[in-house]
């Protein structure tokens, strides 16, 4: 067990302890802040009923993330290599990315209905933009020599993209995936809070109206766990890949 792991664990325990202490001491209203013990208690008192909601949300996230990855990476690879495509789409997407996209969500409700469709569609939109932007930047920074190499060794366009350009820009793509996938998780949960009849976001919202603060915090904790899992997993891949070293474009971290 490493020293840094011990420090992190200790810090977490102290944080949870102080939180619990503040609540037990009665310094804050339990409706505003539920202690960690109440979150654990909510696991049981809700009769595991949150699992249904959580399951739906996870399904939406997985589906939306898969689409956002596919669209973001595919679009970024295709556009990034062409100076014209990059010139057109980089400022465009950067601009769209700067808009609070959630303002468009009412339109998605009209187009896709109140069910999972509108959540997935919106999450795909918000998640694929940073993935596309990072992929474009990564591909654009590939040493042009590799493009000549690909042609001179007779790589088909598909081979060149999948086996040369994609892995060469993977560091930039990975940082895009971290941002994009986190946005997918956030978007699904927020959309469920805004308008839904099921899912984790709805569950949080519903319990808030009942002043079940422990349940609310449980929902928030679960949503947070999803984002942390994404970041941990992709961060792990990123570090392993970065260990392979130079001869690749610098990581393009712009969004």
């Amino acid at each position, binding site marked *: 067990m490493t020293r840094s792991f011990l420090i992190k664990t200790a810090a977490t325990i102290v944080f949870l302890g102080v939180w619990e202490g503040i609540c037990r001491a009665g310094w804050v209203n339990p409706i505003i802040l539920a202690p960690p013990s109440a979150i654990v208690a909510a696991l049981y008192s809700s009769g595991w009923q949150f699992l249904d909601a959580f399951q739906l949300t996870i399904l939406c996230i997985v589906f939306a993330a898969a689409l956002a990855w596919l669209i973001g990476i595919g679009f970024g690879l295709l556009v990034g290599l062409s100076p014209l495509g990059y010139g057109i789409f980089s400022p465009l997407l950067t601009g769209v990315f700067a808009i609070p996209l959630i303002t468009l969500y009412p339109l998605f409700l009209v187009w896709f209905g109140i069910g999972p469709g509108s959540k997935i569609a919106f999450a795909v939109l918000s998640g694929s933009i940073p993935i596309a932007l990072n992929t474009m930047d990564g591909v654009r920074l590939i040493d042009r*020599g*590799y493009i000549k190499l690909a042609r001179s060794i007779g790589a088909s366009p598909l081979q060149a993209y999948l086996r040369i350009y994609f892995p060469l820009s993977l560091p930039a793509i990975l940082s895009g995936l971290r941002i994009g996938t986190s946005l997918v998780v956030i978007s699904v949960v927020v959309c469920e809070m805004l308008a839904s009849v099921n899912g984790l976001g709805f569950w949080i919202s519903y319990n808030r109206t009942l002043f079940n603060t422990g349940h609310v915090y449980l929902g928030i904790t679960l949503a947070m766990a999803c984002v942390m899992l994404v970041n941990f997993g992709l961060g792990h891949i990123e570090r392993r890949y970065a260990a392979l070293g130079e*001869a690749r474009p610098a990581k393009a971290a712009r969004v």
Partner: protein
Amino acid sequence: MKSDVVPKPAAVSIRGVDKKFGNGFHALDKISLDIADGQFLSVVGPSGCGKSTLLQIVAGLVPASGGKVLLDGHPVVGPQPHEVAVVFQDALLLPWKTTLQNVEFPLDLQGVPAAERRAKSLEMLDLVGLSAFADAYPQQLSGGMRQRVSIARGLAQDPRIILMDEPFGALDEQTRIRMGQELLRIWERSRKTVLFITHSLAEAIFLSDVVVVMGRNPGRILERMEVPLPRPRSSDVMGSDVFGQMRNRLWHLLNDEIDRTDQAAPEL
């Protein structure tokens, strides 16, 4: 060995190749040049004389504006990975692949069975003296070693023609001279037709059967010189009179050209 009773067509025949870029820059002005089968031909010239562009036209990577290139009598219309391998100034290895996997890569793309491409690649790694590094990753190798891997990758394609675009240009002087000797040893064993682009006059003379000098604005051939040095050559030939005279002649040709166009000098 093949007998030379019937004169063979040139392995590479460049016929009136012209290149103008979109911005109006006249890179190459009706270049004509033949490279015989198994010949080692170097092109030297000042920066901007279009020697690299010429190589890329021969490789089929860049289209010519006029004229044509014939390989064994067949016109070049695009890259020909089975006929022509290109070695670039940068080794351009894939950093997530081992040395061996990098050498195998072109064969892998062509769908050559694993056992066959592996055997072929190991043979080429042996030829460039890097068998011991088959499982190393590119970032564990020195610059010279990477360039040798890139040469092995080119040889593994089993082309008849190898085009080398300043392959040692990014290396330090010592490594560069050693790489020249190494290349000569490899070439003497494989006897491919080589078109070699360089800045270095000594390198060009030491390696080649023929040295072609190009001028710029527009890029054109100033002179074609046979190198009368016997083979196999060792680095001792660099001290010989013939070598010195050739280098002087090349130097004056280039110097006059540079005075005419007034820019940076080539390195000796």
